[in-house]
C-alpha cells in the first residue's frame, strides 16, 4: 500500500494522483475518529512548527487549519497581513524568510495572487501548503468536498456533481474540478455566462447556463458564493436578479425527482445563492464539510510533515 504522497508541497490538486488523494482520504478517516474522541489530540507533530500566513481574510480555513495543527500537537504561529510589516512594504520572500529564520518547518499560506504558493516553494526551504491563492486553487477545500461526498454517498467515482455560481473567480471550483475528475466523477459547471470562464469546457466539464437543468442532472450540487470583492466590473445586473436565476430555493429543490445533496464551501450569503431553508435542510451537508475539513487538513499536514525538506 502507498504510504507517502508523491509531492513535497500541496500547491494544487493538479499535482496529485488518484492514489495520493485516496491516501489522504484513508488517513483522514483515522483522524476523523481521533477528533470524535473525548481526547481529540495526538502527539504526531509535536516537534513541528507551522506558520499560518494569511494575506487575505479567512475565518473558516484559518480556524480549520489552526485546529488541525493543534490537534496534531504542532506549534502554531498565526500571521495576518493586515497587522504586519507587509503594510510597510516588505516583499513576500522577505516576510516568509524572516518567519523561517525563527525555525518554522511548514507554511500554510493564503494569498490574493495566483501562483504565490508556487513562487514560495521555488524560493524557500519549508513545506508549503496552499490555503487558497488568487483565483487558482484551494486544494484542501476540494479534498474536503470530495471527502464529504465520499462519506455521504460511499463513493466519488461516477457521481454527477454540479458546481454552481461564480466559476470565474472561484479557486474552489477549479480545485474541485481537478479533484472530482481525478477520482472519476462527472463535473458540470453552471452560472451566468459572464461568470463562466470562456475555455472551461477544455477541462472536460459540462457547461450549463440553466439552473434547473443542472439540478435535474446532478447528484450533488455545490453552491458557490458570488465573490463581490473580486468583481471589479458588473457581471450581472443585480444580486436580486442573480438570485431569481441561480439561487437555490426550497421550492426548486423540492420540484426535483430525486433528493440531491447540497454543499457550500462557505461563507454563505443566505438569500443570495442559497436560501436559509435549503442551507439548513436535511439534504445539506454544509456543516459536515466543516467537520471533515479539520480531519482532511490533519491528514495533509501529517503526510507532508513526514517528509524531510532536504530529501
Amino acid at each position, binding site marked *: *500500500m502507498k*504510504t*507517502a504522497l508523491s509531492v513535497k508541497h500541496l500547491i494544487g490538486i493538479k499535482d496529485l494522483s488518484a492514489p495520493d488523494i485516496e491516501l489522504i482520504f*484513508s*488517513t483522514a*478517516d*483515522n483522524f476523523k*475518529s*481521533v477528533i470524535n*474522541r*473525548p*481526547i481529540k*489530540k*495526538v*502527539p*504526531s507533530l509535536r*516537534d*513541528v512548527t507551522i506558520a499560518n500566513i494569511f494575506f487575505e481574510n479567512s475565518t473558516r480555513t484559518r480556524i480549520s487549519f489552526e485546529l488541525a495543527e493543534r490537534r*496534531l500537537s504542532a506549534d502554531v504561529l498565526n500571521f495576518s497581513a493586515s497587522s504586519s510589516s507587509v503594510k510597510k512594504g516588505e516583499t513576500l520572500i522577505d516576510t516568509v524568510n524572516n518567519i523561517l529564520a525563527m525555525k518554522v518547518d511548514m507554511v500554510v499560506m493564503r494569498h490574493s495572487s495566483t501562483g504565490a504558493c508556487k513562487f514560495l516553494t521555488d524560493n524557500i526551504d519549508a513545506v508549503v501548503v496552499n490555503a487558497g491563492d488568487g483565483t487558482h486553487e484551494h486544494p484542501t477545500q476540494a479534498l474536503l468536498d470530495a471527502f464529504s461526498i465520499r462519506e455521504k454517498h460511499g463513493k466519488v467515482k461516477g457521481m454527477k456533481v454540479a458546481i454552481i455560481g461564480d466559476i470565474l473567480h472561484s479557486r474552489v471550483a477549479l480545485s474541485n474540478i481537478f479533484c472530482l475528475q481525478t477520482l472519476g466523477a462527472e463535473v458540470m459547471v453552471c452560472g451566468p455566462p459572464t461568470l463562466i470562464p470562456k475555455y472551461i469546457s477544455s477541462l472536460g466539464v459540462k457547461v450549463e447556463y440553466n439552473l434547473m437543468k443542472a439540478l435535474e442532472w446532478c447528484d450533488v450540487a455545490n453552491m458557490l458564493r458570488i465573490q463581490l470583492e473580486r468583481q471589479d466590473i458588473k457581471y450581472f445586473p443585480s444580486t436580486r436578479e442573480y438570485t431569481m436565476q441561480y439561487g437555490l430555493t426550497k421550492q426548486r429543490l423540492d420540484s426535483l425527482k430525486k433528493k440531491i445533496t447540497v454543499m457550500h464551501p462557505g461563507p454563505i450569503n443566505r438569500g443570495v445563492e442559497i436560501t436559509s431553508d435549503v442551507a439548513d435542510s436535511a439534504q445539506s451537508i454544509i456543516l459536515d464539510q466543516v467537520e471533515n475539513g479539520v480531519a482532511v487538513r490533519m491528514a495533509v499536514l*501529517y*503526510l507532508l*510533515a*513526514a*517528509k*524531510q525538506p532536504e*530529501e
Partner: protein
Amino acid sequence: MKRKVLLSSKQLELTLDRLCHQLIENHDNFKDTVIIGLQPRGVYLARRLHKKLNSLLKNTKIPYGEVDTTFYRDDFRSKGHPIAPQSMNMDFVTIENKNVVLVDDVLHTGRTIRAGLDALLDFGRPKKVELLVLIDRRFSRHLPIQPDYVGKKIDTIVSQNVKAEWKEADGSDGVWLIMND
C-alpha cells in the same frame, strides 16, 4: 534469507492456551478487565486470546479493543516516509478504572509499547495496565518496559527479525526467526 521455526503451529496453540490460563489465574472472571490489541500485528494475537478466553469462560463477555500507535510514534519523521495508520477500535464503553491487558506479538525495543501506552491513556485512566507478548526478544530494550505475560523468551541479535504469522492474515500459524545475512 534463512528462516528458523521458533514456535510451530502446535506449539503456538499450547502457548496460547497457557497464556489464557495465566490471564484467568490473575483476572478471575474478567469483571473489570479489558483486552486491547496493538495495531497492526498485535491484534491477531489479541483476537485469538479473546476468542479462547470467551470460550473458556462461558457466560462472560470480555470487553475488547484495538489501538493504533501510529500517531504516537517517536520515529515517524525519521523514517523519511509516513507510516500508514490503522484503525482504532475502542467502541466499548471505557477503560476508566479498568485493568487493561495490552497485547502485542513481539516485544523488541519497547518503543511500540511506549507509543501504545500513550495512545491508550488518551481514552481514559486505567486502574492498571499489564503487558502480554507472544515473543520477548531479551536484551534488546531501548526503554525500561517489561512484559507481565510472555509466550516465549528468545535471544536475538539486531540484524535478525522475529515474525509471528497467523492463519487469518498469512495463511498459516507459526513464529519465525528470520536471519538477514
